[in-house]
């Protein structure tokens, strides 16, 4: 789980072009949207693509993302349970 969390931090920085953020800057329990990393609706859609490409998880309804992308820990937990690759 710890490993997956660290991996996710790197992948999120890369997928969302968070050029000035380092993995150690991200608190895995903090909210991804809103103030934290300042992510927006396009980032949420890009995270959906990232989940599909890296972990074979297809989200049919983007509204599901709201729950899953609460924090990196929540995301990692979801990925662990649902990944197909």
């Amino acid at each position, binding site marked *: 789980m710890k490993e997956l969390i660290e991996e996710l931090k790197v992948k999120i920085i890369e997928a969302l072009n968070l050029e000035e953020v380092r993995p150690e800057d991200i608190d895995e329990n903090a909210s991804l949207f809103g103030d934290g990393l300042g992510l927006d609706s396009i980032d949420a859609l*890009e995270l959906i693509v990232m989940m599909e490409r890296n972990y074979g998880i297809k989200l049919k309804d983007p509204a599901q993302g709201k729950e899953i992308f609460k924090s990196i820990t929540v995301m990692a937990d979801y990925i662990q349970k649902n990944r197909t690759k």
Partner: protein
Amino acid sequence: MRIKKWLSFSPDSLSLNGETLGVVGGGVEMLHELYRRKVGDYPKFFKMDMLGKLGFVASELLLQSEDAPRFVPREDRSVVFCNRSASLVADRRYQETISDADNYYPSPALFVYTLPNIVTGEIAIRNKYYGETSFVVLEKFDPEQIAMHVAAAFQDPVCQSQLVGWTECSDESHWQCLMLLVEREGELDRHGLAATLERMFTSL
């Protein structure tokens, strides 16, 4: 009309209101370096496509040189850009995400930039400009045609000034950028504006 501020920018040179500014590196790295040195407080910059980064950095430099308070909501300023290649650089990058059936992951963050007018929206958001934003594509750089378009855009009675841009970007290492802050009131007619554009373009 009156030209209040002006900027010209190519991979080889950058000049603001007639003064040469130093540039470092090449390609998109040059834009990143300029952003870090001259702007620095808008991380969304790194999410933009090449056209967006070019237009954003150029507009920042130009507007920083305007003797006016920034980020005050206003409707009387338009952002009127044009070029030849539209969003071709972003179009090609997006096409790569869908062309291989075994590696088909269309990217929304790339797709949104396959509209050339996004750069005008980015600048409106940054500066709280509620005025007109528009993007037109021309067959080639044609100063008379651009000047006509600018003169025509002043027919909106609310518009008192325009951020005018020729933001051409054919790949990640080649661009031509002319940007002018043009005010409604002034002696300059559209032929004068065209002559200035022509001079600036020739010296790029």
